């Protein structure tokens, strides 16, 4: 292992204390979570392998964002065990890239996109226990590495030419690409994308899904994507996490998106219809009783 690396390594060498590539990306055992003492969901036992592209589907308030916040160490399960990339969830985990649903910036934010991506670059510093620690305080000196990482991240999401543009001037789809680059710049092993497709029309949704899928394949990043509609991405998915009615169902799309499985999840009769191009329509489940929690 080299003593000084310019930024977190792409692939971890043999004997690296962080190399847990044999372990699954996410392992949940009998997980139960409450939000302000109200039960969000319980009894979730599932496993997501590395490099998988996973959709997190469910009605509003079913606890999709809560799942993300738990993995980021911002929310704690009330019982059960959760391990993310082979370790307990912790705040400030640079191995996870996160795109939240809400952003502080808006039309009046006059700042270059490139700068936002650069700001998210974690920098290089060895912390105790030979762990990569982000360098967050003080001035930056490794500007070249930062610039290269930012350019690479923008390139990977097909937004290189947006770099010098102002954040306030971008369209919704362009902005989501910048956020994706912002999440990717630290070279994470896992991406958590919270509703990146909301406010995008169907064509832009599909384009963004293609970009994300490309990143999943080329960088080998395990990706979880929260969405309301599964259809734009149904052909690229490895797994689906379906959260509804206080329960969680996990499996491949073919396993989960069946009338029997979803009926059991919702506790009422639900029909899953398929069209000739593989799109699905779920009938009867959305007026459910899963509307509690975050």
């Amino acid at each position, binding site marked *: 292992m080299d003593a000084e690396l310019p930024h977190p390594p792409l692939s971890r060498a043999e004997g690296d204390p962080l190399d847990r590539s044999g372990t699954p990306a996410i392992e949940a055992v009998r997980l139960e979570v409450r939000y302000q003492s109200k039960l969000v969901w319980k009894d979730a036992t599932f496993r997501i392998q590395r490099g998988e592209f996973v959709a997190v589907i469910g009605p509003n308030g079913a606890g999709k964002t809560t799942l993300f916040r738990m993995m*980021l160490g*911002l929310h704690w399960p009330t019982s059960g065990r959760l391990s993310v990339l082979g370790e307990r969830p912790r*705040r*400030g*985990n*640079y191995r*996870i890239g*996160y*795109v*939240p649903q*809400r*952003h*502080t*910036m808006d039309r009046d*934010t*006059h*700042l*270059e996109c490139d*700068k*936002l991506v650069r*700001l*998210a670059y*974690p920098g290089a510093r060895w912390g105790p226990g030979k762990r990569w620690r*982000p360098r*967050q*305080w*003080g*001035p*930056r000196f490794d500007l070249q590495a930062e610039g290269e990482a930012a350019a690479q991240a923008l390139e990977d999401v097909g937004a290189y030419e947006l770099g010098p*543009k*102002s*954040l306030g001037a971008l369209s919704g789809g362009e902005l989501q690409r910048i956020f994706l680059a*912002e*999440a990717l710049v630290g070279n994470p092993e896992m991406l958590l994308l919270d509703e990146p497709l909301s406010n995008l029309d169907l064509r832009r949704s599909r384009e963004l899904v293609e970009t994300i899928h490309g990143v999943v394949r080329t960088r080998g990043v395990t990706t979880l994507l929260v969405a309301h509609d599964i259809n734009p991405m149904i052909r690229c998915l490895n797994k689906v996490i379906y959260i509804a009615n206080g329960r969680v169902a996990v499996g491949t799309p073919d396993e989960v998106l069946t009338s029997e499985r979803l009926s059991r999840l919702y506790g009422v009769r639900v029909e899953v219809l398929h069209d000739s191009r593989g799109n699905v329509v779920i009938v009867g489940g959305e007026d459910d009783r899963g509307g509690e929690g975050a």
Partner: protein
Amino acid sequence: MTGGGGWSGIPWSWNIITDFRLLWSFEFMRNAMEAGTMIAILAGIIGYFVVLRRSSFASHALGHTGFSGAAAAVLVGVQPVYGLLIFTMATGSGMAVLGNRASARDVEIGTVLAFALGLGLLFISLYRGYAQEAYSILFGEVLGISSAEVAFTFWSTLGVLAVLTLIYRPLLFASLDEDVAEAKGLPLLFLNLAFLLILAVAISFAVQIIGVLLIFALMVTPAAIAVRLTSRSLWAVVVSVLIAMTAVWGGLFVALWTNYPASFFIVGIVFVEYICIRGVGVLRETALLQAVEAPEPDGVWYLRDAAIVAAISQGLFVVGAVLLTIALLAHPGAAWNPAGLLGHALPAVAALEAAAVLGGTSSLLYFSGFRKMATSAREFATPAFLTLVGLLGLGIAIGGLALFLTGETLATTAYGLAPVAVLFGAPLIVLGSVLTGVGLFGHAVGSWKLGLRYNDAALRAGALLMVVPLVGYAVSCFAYRRALVRGAVPAPIPRGTSG
């Protein structure tokens, strides 16, 4: 400006260097300049974050709590700046602890703000020297800063800058993308607290020169202008500092020579800069600049007419200037006296007025021409915009001249009003003239682009010569005629067949 105003400032000479030496020879002025510079640097940098974090109302409120702090300090008998620091920092900490979205709680902030002002009023009334102290806290007293206060300001500025160097990146990130920053493990509460404390320090010092009520002009507006000019964070900070600095220096400079309050000039300079930048933004969006459906030859012929009218206007202008010079040499007393001017130099005034009207007409023609050209070639959108700016400038200059002349006329009857008209008239004339110059530059740029488009050297030469009075537009007229004969420029479309 040697109008009939009644100010008794320092004698003004046109030699800037001697003026500056004179100014630097006063200790109070040196102190004011030094403190003002440091405060401008602080305010410019922190203002960037204030704008980014949308906490301008919080900064306004901090200034108001500073009023009660300063009043309390006066009551206890210490320097107001210590009271300012204690009160603003306490309020800032309170805001940070209550939540990190201070900007979203307008009602709470407003309530605290009103109470703080009332408290300040109580303290001030308990103190005997009521009016003067309150006045200087509310509106600033830059010329009363002592050397000790300058030193204190210097060290505090240094400390704040050191802290900012440490937290610059995380603060910027947390201001931009709060949820991601939280997930990355940045301590949002601490960052917010640090920001509000720094803001409190900056406000405490800024209040000394600009006052509680005018704090917005120094803490928020320069950065708000800067982010409209550049989207690079470092440049925005630099520009914001420069704007704050020009305002403070310019304000002090003008105040010393006119004996009016420096705070007014600081606020005034910032205001004018803001209006200009916003004006450009509004002007760019205006429907007047949207492309119109028009055939290209129409645009060319508008431009030819514009050049002819402009040449006549400039000819009249030169004649008028010569006549005016002759008249003024014969009757020097008529210079700042509208009645005298009309009496002794009526032909000159008439020629100049006709030149101005024709100049405006030619600008309008140029504008229409460029706008029509922009339909087939987008590169004419910029000259159209610049010409529009010039038209606006002409209007402003005429308004300023009217104000100025009114002031001069009033000088004999309403003594108090005269300087006010001059004070606003003169800057408006200067601003209008500069903008008119921008418009003329637009004529030249557009003509040059036209020369490139039709590959006509004479048109390009005319564009370059537009800096020389009379020659440029005359050459342009000639060039249009020549180009038409050669067939290089599309011929006008007869009425009825166009469109």
